[in-house]
């Protein structure tokens, strides 16, 4: 029932505008995806999303101590006390329990400290997990140096096994003076394709 009526502008000008607007839509859609690498680069440059420097070492796959401990521990700022809190969560799909045995530490920047976590495999299968750290406030991340961390490597647990996991770290003295409390949170993820439990969450989520 399209009634052809006298419109002030010919239909061809509709089409031109339509094409321009569709281009805007396409650009906006592409922009949304472009935000992903932009975000990563931005976070890498500023350290805003709480990814610690140690996490980069993890991607190289180094497990143990790689540098002399005394080198970083030499400058201790005894005038400042920083509280470091520890917490751990197990993400859905990983039938483990995790607990921070060291819940918080008061320390001077530059001191070498160790914190311990305990993980327990609740299932009857061997499962490999991987911990991902996150530091908040995010700006503290670049000055939170992990010398040895269980998060550098994948952690296999036998059925029912309980394991203590250590973390050795230094809070560097260069850390911003207005930071008094740092929280280090670990999230344990199941390592894909190690077991058949990847699709398990669908069931327990609702019950």
């Amino acid at each position, binding site marked *: 029932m399209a009634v052809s*009526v006298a419109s002030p502008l010919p239909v061809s000008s509709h089409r031109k505008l339509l094409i321009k607007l569709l281009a805007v839509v396409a650009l906006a859609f592409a922009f949304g995806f472009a935000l992903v690498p932009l975000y990563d680069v931005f976070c890498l440059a500023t350290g805003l999303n709480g990814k610690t420097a140690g996490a980069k070492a993890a991607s190289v796959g180094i497990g143990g101590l790689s540098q002399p401990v005394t080198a970083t521990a030499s400058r201790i700022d005894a005038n400042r006390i920083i509280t470091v809190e520890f917490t751990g969560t197990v993400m859905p799909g990983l039938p483990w329990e995790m607990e921070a045995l060291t819940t918080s530490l008061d320390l001077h920047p530059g001191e070498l400290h160790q914190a311990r976590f305990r993980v327990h495999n609740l299932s009857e299968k061997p499962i490999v997990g991987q911990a991902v750290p996150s530091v908040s406030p995010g700006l503290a991340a670049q000055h939170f140096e992990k010398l040895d961390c269980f998060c550098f490597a994948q952690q296999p647990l036998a059925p029912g096994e309980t394991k203590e996991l250590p973390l050795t770290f230094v809070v560097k003295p260069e850390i911003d003076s207005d930071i008094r409390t740092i929280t280090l949170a670990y999230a344990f993820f199941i390592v894909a394709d190690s077991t058949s439990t990847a699709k398990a969450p669908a069931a327990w*989520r*609702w019950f």
Partner: protein
Amino acid sequence: MNTSTVSNAAAVHDHAHDHAPTGVMRWLTSTNHKDIGTLYLWFSLFMFFFAGALAMLIRAELFQPGLQLFQPTVFNQLTTMHGLIMIFGAIMPSLVGFANWQVPLMIGAPDMAFPRLNNWSFWLLPAAGVLLISTFFVPGGAIAGGWTMYPPLFMQGGIAYDMSILAVHILGVSSIMGAINIIVTILNMRAPGMTLMKMPMFVWTWLITAFLLVAVMPVLACAITMLLTDRNFGTHFFDASGGGDPVMFQHVFWFFGHPEVYIMILPAFGIVSTIIPTFARKPLFGYVSMVYAVASIAFLSFIVWAHHMFTTGMPLGGQLFFMYTTMLIAIPTGIKVFNWVATLWRGSISFETPMLFSLAFVFLFTIGGFSGLVLALVPVDIQLQDTYYVVAHFHYVLFSGSAMAIMGGVYYWLPKWTGHMYDEKLGKVHFWLTAIAFNITFFPMHFLGLAGMPRRIPDYALQFAEFNMIASLGGFLLGASQLLFLYVVIKCVRGGIAAGNQPWDGADTLEWTQTSPPPYHSFVTPPLVK
């Protein structure tokens, strides 16, 4: 529907060559902007009642502390679906319905630029609506992660999550097509002599809103596409186990989400800017500054998104930037409020129902704007994040803002759309019930939020009991009052005193030069605007 028969009859007279189908096929295949506008408005009214019913269930659960009616999962489904359906199913489609009816009539165009696209834009909505509502009946129930769809919660749910993402995709496509149609119509089809700065304010607000839609709906589509592939195809955009970052979703989402807030309020500004001059019998004060204010609000909406995320851990510089840009929005918004008040000054004001709704809008929306300023302050926001203060704030801008402006607009244009006057007495009763019940429902939520009651929780500590009971009683009254609205609208559609071409003596836009209801094909010969 009486409208249809009347306007069909008119169409037959005007265009004997026009073989319009009748019955259901008329509505399914219609490319007429008035038919499609009507469909949009009925659809959004249905969704308004559906999502409103969910709100009644929420208030019933919160009537007393403790879990009475629903398990927490079900409660979360109710809040999530209430928000999602109200935004995408009720407010947005109703505003597009207004645009369909009013934009061609107000600019003297015969129809929308792309009538078939218009038909498709509408008929995608019921499909999306059915898909969304049907999630209540799938295993695991409907989505329960909040309307903002944040991962990781949104990556863990069942099939309902995928269905809802698909439904939001469809709604987004519909919005984008509708927006493109509106832009082309406004830019290309204005009557001769109607320059951009002579356009009615409602048309201006919709033009800017349509540009916002075109710019940000694809970004939402992008964010939920990434959710969908994270859920189903093993990507790791937001999945921390694969190196993704859930906070990034919030950035992408709110880059859409904040302009979305203005998408829902700018056309409401336009409606109010049309009604107030009519009943104050004065031209709109500061028309040019109104246009620039709307444009600045639209621009600023792109650079404030992270004020929704002050608690995600942000450097001081970022917090200050987003705090200041957010507070900057108060300036163009303040200009609009002052212009409305200045329009009223020394006007010959009469208080018909549309005017009552508009005046309540100015007053209550300003309260919502002020609580928005409070929330823009970083240290305050960190305290109030995810409390009932936020719930109170956005209901003041979305219900007493958008929804009450929409109701005012419905009363204002119903005589034009149907040819009958609505029942003025019942309209006023509806207004006062709505305005009073709204404040009983939502004002106490400010106090609840300041006292620390978190949102999206089915149970609460005992000290919140009194205010919650007041809010629930107000909520039930508010819900029941809307049945009166439905009754008034149906009564008006079915008959009433003939409206005549110009029922409001102060109205001066082009639609009032047409008969009431306007002929099926109006402005076949473009009017000349001086």
